[in-house]
C-alpha cells in the first residue's frame, strides 16, 4: 500500500535491519520473571462453528435426521476447495474450513458449548473481549488484553498493539490501553518521524529541543493540568515516542521491502495482500518479534456476519483464511527466538474467539443467523493442548453443562461462559484474574 492509500484509509533477525541495539538490549534485560506475550485474536461477525471448531459428521447429520437434530452441516454447499466432510486433526475432529490449523491440533485446545447468552454482536463481542457481561451494550470492564498488559508492565515501546478490534481501558494504567492501528501498512509510517515525510526541521533545532526537554519539565507547574498525573503520563509517552522513531523499528514493518521477503513468503502476502488475515497475522508476529509490543489484539477473520447466500462462499473462505493465518503465526513464533531465550511461542498465550456462533440450520436466505452457542481456541504458554473442553449437544447444538475441573460435560456442572475462558487465559500465564470473579477450566492449564 502506498502512502496515498495510507492516507485514504484512515524470524527475521534484528541485526539485519539495523534495529537499535540499545532497544534490543533493554528488551533482553527486561525479559525477566514476567517474560510473557499475549495474542488475542478476534473473528469478527460471528463464526460458523460447524465449519471450524465444532463440526458434525454430515453422514450422520443429514437431511433425514435434520428434523430431529436441527443440525445441518451443509458442507456440500461450500466451494470445491473445501472438504465435504469433517477433518480428522488427530486429537479431535475439526470442520472443513479449519485450513492449516488442522496440522497444529496438538498445539491448541478447543472449548465447545460456550453459552453467550446473547445474539447481539456488540454484546457478545464485548463480553468476550472483557470477560464481563456488558451493561446493555456498554462494556463493563477493561479488555482482557489490557488487563494482561497492565500486569506485565510497560517495558515495550507500544506495550499493547490493537488492530481492528475494540479495546477498553476502564481501570488499568494508561500504557496498557491499545494503540490501535487502522491498517497493517500504517505501522511503518506511524513508527517514522514525521510519518516518513521529508522534514524541514533543522538538526540544530532538534538538538536544542532535546536539551530543553531533558533539562526541565514543560512549565514547572505546581498546579493545573500540566502538574497532573495525566501530564506525567503524556511526558513519559512523549519520551517513548521519540525513542521509537529513532530506533528504526519501522523497517521491520515495511512489508514490501526486500528485507522482509521471508515474512512475505511465510504469510503469502504477495497473493493475499497486506490488508488480509495473513497481513494481520504478520503484523502481530512482527510486533512481538521486534520487541515493539508484549500484547497484540487483532482481528483474525473479518466480515463473517453472513445471513444470506454469501455464507457458502464468503464465510467459508474468510474463516479458512483466518484459521490458516493463525497457523502461520503460530509456526512463525515457534521458529522465532525470544529476547530472553527460548522460542517466542513458548512464552506466548493465544486465544481466538468470536462473539457467538451461527445457527446450525440454514435459513430461508441460504445463510446462517446468530446462535447462542459459541467456541473458543486457546493455545500456547500455560495451556495444555490437544484437548476438547465442553460440548454442544446434538439437538440444535445447545451448550451443555461442564465440570470446570475436568472440562467434561456434567449435568451437575456449570454453564461455560466467556469469563471462565478468560480467567483460564489469564491464569495460564500466572496473571491475576480476580477482577473477573470467576473460575478457570482447570484441565486447560498446563
Amino acid at each position, binding site marked *: 500500500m502506498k502512502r496515498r492509500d495510507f492516507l485514504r484509509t484512515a524470524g527475521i533477525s534484528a541485526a539485519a535491519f539495523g534495529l537499535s541495539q540499545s532497544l534490543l538490549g533493554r528488551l533482553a534485560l527486561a525479559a525477566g520473571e514476567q517474560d510473557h506475550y499475549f495474542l488475542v485474536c478476534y473473528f469478527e461477525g460471528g463464526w460458523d462453528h460447524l465449519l471450524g471448531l465444532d463440526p458434525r459428521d454430515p453422514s450422520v447429520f443429514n437431511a433425514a435426521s435434520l428434523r430431529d437434530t436441527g443440525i445441518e452441516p451443509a458442507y456440500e454447499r461450500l466451494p470445491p476447495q473445501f472438504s465435504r466432510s469433517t477433518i480428522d486433526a488427530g486429537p479431535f475432529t475439526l470442520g472443513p474450513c479449519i485450513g492449516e490449523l488442522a496440522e497444529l491440533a496438538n498445539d491448541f485446545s478447543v472449548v465447545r458449548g460456550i453459552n453467550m447468552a446473547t445474539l447481539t454482536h456488540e454484546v457478545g463481542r464485548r463480553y468476550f473481549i472483557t470477560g464481563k457481561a456488558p451493561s446493555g451494550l456498554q462494556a463493563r470492564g477493561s479488555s482482557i488484553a489490557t488487563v494482561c498488559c497492565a500486569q506485565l508492565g510497560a517495558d515495550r515501546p507500544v506495550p499493547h498493539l490493537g488492530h481492528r478490534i475494540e479495546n477498553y481501558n476502564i481501570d488499568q494504567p494508561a500504557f496498557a490501553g491499545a494503540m490501535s492501528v487502522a491498517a497493517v501498512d500504517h505501522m511503518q509510517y506511524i513508527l517514522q518521524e514525521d510519518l516518513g515525510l521529508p522534514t524541514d526541521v*533543522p538538526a540544530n*533545532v532538534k538538538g536544542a529541543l532535546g536539551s530543553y526537554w531533558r533539562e*526541565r519539565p514543560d512549565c514547572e507547574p505546581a498546579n493545573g493540568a500540566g502538574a497532573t498525573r495525566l501530564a506525567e503520563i503524556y511526558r513519559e509517552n512523549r519520551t517513548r515516542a521519540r525513542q*521509537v522513531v529513532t530506533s528504526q523499528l519501522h523497517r521491520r514493518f515495511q512489508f514490501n521491502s526486500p528485507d522482509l521477503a521471508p515474512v512475505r513468503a511465510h504469510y503469502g502476502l504477495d497473493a493475499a495482500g497486506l490488508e488480509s488475515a495473513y497481513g494481520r497475522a504478520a503484523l502481530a508476529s512482527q510486533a512481538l518479534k521486534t520487541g515493539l509490543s508484549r500484547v497484540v489484539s487483532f482481528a483474525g477473520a473479518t466480515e463473517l456476519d453472513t445471513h444470506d447466500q454469501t455464507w457458502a462462499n464468503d464465510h467459508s473462505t474468510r474463516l479458512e483464511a483466518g484459521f490458516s493465518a493463525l497457523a502461520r503465526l503460530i509456526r512463525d513464533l515457534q521458529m522465532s527466538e525470544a529476547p530472553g531465550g527460548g522460542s517466542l511461542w513458548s512464552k506466548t498465550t493465544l486465544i481466538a474467539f468470536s462473539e457467538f456462533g451461527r445457527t446450525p440450520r440454514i435459513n430461508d436466505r441460504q445463510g446462517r443467523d446468530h446462535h447462542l452457542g459459541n467456541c473458543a481456541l486457546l493455545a500456547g504458554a500455560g495451556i495444555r493442548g490437544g484437548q476438547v473442553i465442553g460440548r454442544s449437544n446434538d439437538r440444535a447444538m445447545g451448550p451443555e453443562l461442564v465440570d470446570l475441573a475436568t472440562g467434561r460435560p456434567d449435568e451437575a456442572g456449570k454453564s461455560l461462559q466467556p469469563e471462565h475462558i478468560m480467567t483460564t487465559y489469564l491464569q495460564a500465564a500466572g496473571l491475576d484474574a480476580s477482577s473477573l470473579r470467576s473460575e478457570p477450566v482447570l484441565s486447560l492449564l498446563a
Partner: protein
Amino acid sequence: MNTTHHAAPLFLGLVTLLSCGEDRSGTKTERPEAEIDVGRQADRATADPTPDAALPVVVQSTLSRAPGRMTVDQLRRSIEIITGGLAWEEDFGDGPTDMLEVLAPTIGAPDYLLVTEENLEPSLIIAKFLHDASHRLCVRWVENESVAPPERRTLVRHAAAFESREEADIKAGLRALQLRFFARYLPEDGAEDGPISALYGLFLNASSTSTPGREAKDGWLAVCIAHMTDPELLLY
C-alpha cells in the same frame, strides 16, 4: 491588534481555567471565568485567542475537577485558532489532506463501527503524532511569519522585526505565546519567569547553532515546537 478576543470556544475556556500559570508560592493568576464567552462561535481563522493584557486577573489556587485530554477534533480546532488558521495538512498530489482527520482512528477517535467512544488517554501515539504535527505546522507557521507584516503576525507578535534577537523582544513574544497556547498570563515583573527563561534559553540555543540567516527562524521554530508538544496544550 485584533481585539475580538472573547471568541474562544469552550475548550480554550477550560484551558484558561486550568492552566498552570502559577508561581512557586502556589498562587495562580488567570483571567476570570466571566471574561470568556464560551457560546460565541467566531470565524476560527481570524479568531484571536489572546486576551487583552489590560483585563483584570484573579487568583485561583486549586483545580476543581480531574484533568482531561482534548479530543482529536478539539485539538484540530485549537491548532487552527492558535496558529491563525493553519491545519496539519499534507498534499500528496490530490489536494490537501487533513492529517489529524485521517489519523483520528489510530489516535483513538471513534469510527462508530468498531469503536464508539474516543480514547482520551495521552497515549504514546498521540504524543508521537503531535510531535509530527508540530514539525510540519511550525515550519509553515515560521515561514509565513517571516514574510508577514508585523500587524498580521500571530507567532512573533511583540517584535517590530521578525529577525530581532533582542532579549526584551523575544521574552515579550514568549509571554504572548504562553497566553496564546495555554491562556497563561505571565506578567513582566519576573515573578513567574521560569518558563520564559527556559524558553528564552531554547531560543538562544537553536538560533546560536543556526546557519547564517536562519537564526530567528530556528529560534522561533524551536519555541513553537516546544509549545505545541507541551502537555498544557493537549490537557485541560
